[in-house]
């Protein structure tokens, strides 16, 4: 079965235990205002252009067969003398992807690591993800997920995983909808499944100034995680102003409604109150 990925990143050090290779699956049902991987939003391959260094030589325009709208033919990619263009997103067969990843199995095992699936939202290509995970059973397998997934599918995916990194972006459903475009109900249900699964996991909060960095939201999140046996830690990931860097490359606008220049609250003390291990990174 085929899936769409937009990157394979070796030597990932923040995506689970040990040294890992992270596969980015393309496409996401959420639209978080702070998303820094805009090329992971659409499920289809897209043209990506580094516009800053462009000299406007016109070669890409001259060769384009469809000036009215990009058909992702890739002709302009080779035409660019500076190599500023590429197609992000590639259809791959699960077996081929798994074979490629298995090539580094010995290396990754020696480094106490494995493979992590990220995105986009990896569960959004659930069947492809499951097939790849099954083929990778000899390797330590992890996921980075928003948790936004049909609960049955989520349970099935969990059963193929050794480690889970899941976001809790907001505990308040209305605010969750406002800033991510979806309700957090499925996410919170999946969190309960995750807690019961016996799989070691890590919770991440992308801390966005004025959005989810209130004491109340931290407190509500901490409450959800009190007395959770297999929780490694909660990680607070501060919003970074460079989040918007890639939007222009995929011809999108970056228009966050929150205050991007305010430093987010990274106070871990509230989590400590609830005996929930937490650190800011």
């Amino acid at each position: 079965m085929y899936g769409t990925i937009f990157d394979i990143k070796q030597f990932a050090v923040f995506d689970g235990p040990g040294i890992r290779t992270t596969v980015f699956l393309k496409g996401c049902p959420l639209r978080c205002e702070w998303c820094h991987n805009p090329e992971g939003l659409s499920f289809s391959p897209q043209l990506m252009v580094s516009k800053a260094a462009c000299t406007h030589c016109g070669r890409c325009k001259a060769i384009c067969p469809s000036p009215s709208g990009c058909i992702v033919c890739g002709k302009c990619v080779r035409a660019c003398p500076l190599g500023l263009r590429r197609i992000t997103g590639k259809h791959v067969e699960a077996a081929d992807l798994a074979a490629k990843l298995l090539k580094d199995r010995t290396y990754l095992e020696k480094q106490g690591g494995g493979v992590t699936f990220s995105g986009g939202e990896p569960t959004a290509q659930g069947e492809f993800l499951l097939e790849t995970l099954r083929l990778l059973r000899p390797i330590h397998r992890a996921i980075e997920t928003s948790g936004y997934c049909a609960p049955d599918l989520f349970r099935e995916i969990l059963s193929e995983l050794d480690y889970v990194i899941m976001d809790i972006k907001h505990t308040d459903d209305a605010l969750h909808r406002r800033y991510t475009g979806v309700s957090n109900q499925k996410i919170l249900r999946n969190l309960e499944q995750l807690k019961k699964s016996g799989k070691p996991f890590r919770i991440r909060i992308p801390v966005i100034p004025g959005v989810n960095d209130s004491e109340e939201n931290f407190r509500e999140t901490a409450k959800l995680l009190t007395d959770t046996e297999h929780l490694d830690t909660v990680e607070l990931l501060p919003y970074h102003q460079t989040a918007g860097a890639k939007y222009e490359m995929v011809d999108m606008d970056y228009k966050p409604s929150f205050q991007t220049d305010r430093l987010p609250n990274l106070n871990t003390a509230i989590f400590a109150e609830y005996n929930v291990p937490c650190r800011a990174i």
Partner: protein
Amino acid sequence: MTEYIETLLKRFIADKDQKKYRISFTDDGTLAAAWKGENLNDLQRAVRRLQFMLENEVPHVYPDEKIALIRTVPQIPEIFTEQEREEIRKAHYIHEQGKVCNINPEYIRLIAPGFDQKRLEIRAELQKDCTPEKKEYLEALLTVLDLIQAFAARYREAAEKAGNETVAKTFARIPAKAPETYLEALQFLRLLHYCLWCSFNYHNTLGRFDQYMYPYYRADIESGRLDRGSALELTEEFFISCNKDSDLYTGMQQGDNGQSMVLGGLNPDGSESYNDLSDLCLQASLELRLIDPKINLRVNRNTPLSLYEKGTHLTQKGLGFPQYANDDIVIPALKRWGYEEADAYNYVVAACWEFIIPGRGADIPNINTMSYVRTITETLDLLPSCETFESYLELVHGSILRQTEELVSLAKNVYMEPAPLMSLMMEGCIQSGKDVSQGCRYNNYGFHGAGLSTAVDSLAAIRKYVFEEKTISAEKMVSMCRTNFAGCEEIQNMLRYEAPKFGNDDDSVDELAKQLLDWAADALEGKTNDRGGIYRAGTGSAMYYVWDSRDRIATPDGRREGEELACNYSPSLFIRCEGPVSIIKSFTKPDLVRVSNGGPLTIELTDTMFRNEESIRKVAMFVKSFFDMGGHQMQINAVNREKMLDAKKHPENYKNLIVRVWGWSGYFVELDECYQDHIIKRMELSV
């Protein structure tokens, strides 16, 4: 860091206060002309030069410092007139500037006995039946000791005048007598190092400081004269002293001064030599964040992850070191080349990364370079006549053989100016009465290997597109390279970004690299130079990554005409590699024991990878994995591309931004633009 060290850093590094004591002197050739007029030979002139330098130095001692000496004479005179130099050049091969450089003297040969004892040894030799030449030489050595001792005495007076009892007391003892404390030993080392620079020797490496200084350190710790904190402070003061005059040191670029230091390493019995002092040196470097001395760590398969973690904390500081060398590869390599077992275990690095032997090696490990790019550019025209890829590969092999013959025939009848002070710290010079400029126990020559990735990628492209897929004809490939891909930009783009590359863990490509390196090693096998030494093949590039690219036509890997090559043993600059894991898998496939002249895999990691203890440990694991897989040498840098781009625009804001260039670290804003740009391009490869 103590308040005292902060004071020194402000004085010597930030304010550069010592510079105000510099006198004006420009070498206009008068001295050389006068020495010629007196009919002095080269040895006599070398001694006169040191005499001129030390006698004209104006001692200045700060009241609070413990380790003194600053340079006040800004330039060192040449000993030959322009005309004489021309004549020497006609008759000899002149390496770089014709001075003894880039070796590692054993300072301890003078420090341990002190000058008085050393004089006895020289005088005893004089008592023997000496040729007139030997007698003259030994007397010159005695003069050198006298000159340095007189200079030290003037420093003692200056210290007394400045009310600095510590320095006065130290110079009351050394260099005549053997040092009794760590402080005296450090001041002794500083004095010798200082006088080497004044002798116009350069790339004066510091070697295994943690080994030869250890007895002094330990004695002070055991006697209670020093505790760890005060020993650290002294070590830091010595490190700072390496930066006081470094702008006056000879090098290709500011920062390329060869003050490398090597820590740890296996003993011949298999035990580890890394000790408390090694640890102190790492800590000193970590706290000071100065470009000198440049730290090298010797590792092996049993080196614990914790040492790599310490090294990685230092890498995080962005200094471009430590550089790592793998004993499991380097020691067998040196033994294979005929180095004695004890010497192989005692190896250090020269100015950058070439492996040399303290006190016994007069090797010239950077005498020239094999140009792998040339193996392609000079055979390319014959590509259309090749029926198979293998027959083309044979032409490349022929080029390697041809270049080897050229390199070997060039490096004949080397002349270097006599270096009596250096010779006092090299084995056998007193006994033989021969200066180290004429050789020592080891007189091997090493060749770098520049542009390997460009050649490998070109071969891989030729094999795939010309011979296998037949999508580009041989004639087309040649004409595209000859015309710098004019009108064929799309094909060039494909060759650059889609063709197979060295560094992607692709066996068929990596085998080509192994083949080229094997051929380079084979070609040198059994050849000897006219100093009785052998030749060593390497994987370093030094400045050839810029020099050797300038006049080279475009290459089949899509590289543009004149476009720079990768630095040292690294993937080509513009390629998008699959990642660092693939890179180290590829780069550990060749038989590195055969090409271990020196030349590291260079990896750049963004500074965000060093964000916390956990990620630092993983970076350390990554470094370790390269050596566990058989890598020979690695240089790893924490970089921030945005910072460098900004530093080009606003150099005034980045005076302390340190970067690794090819085998040394320097201040980014002090580099020529072509080197700045190369580093920024390298960064684009970083993960």
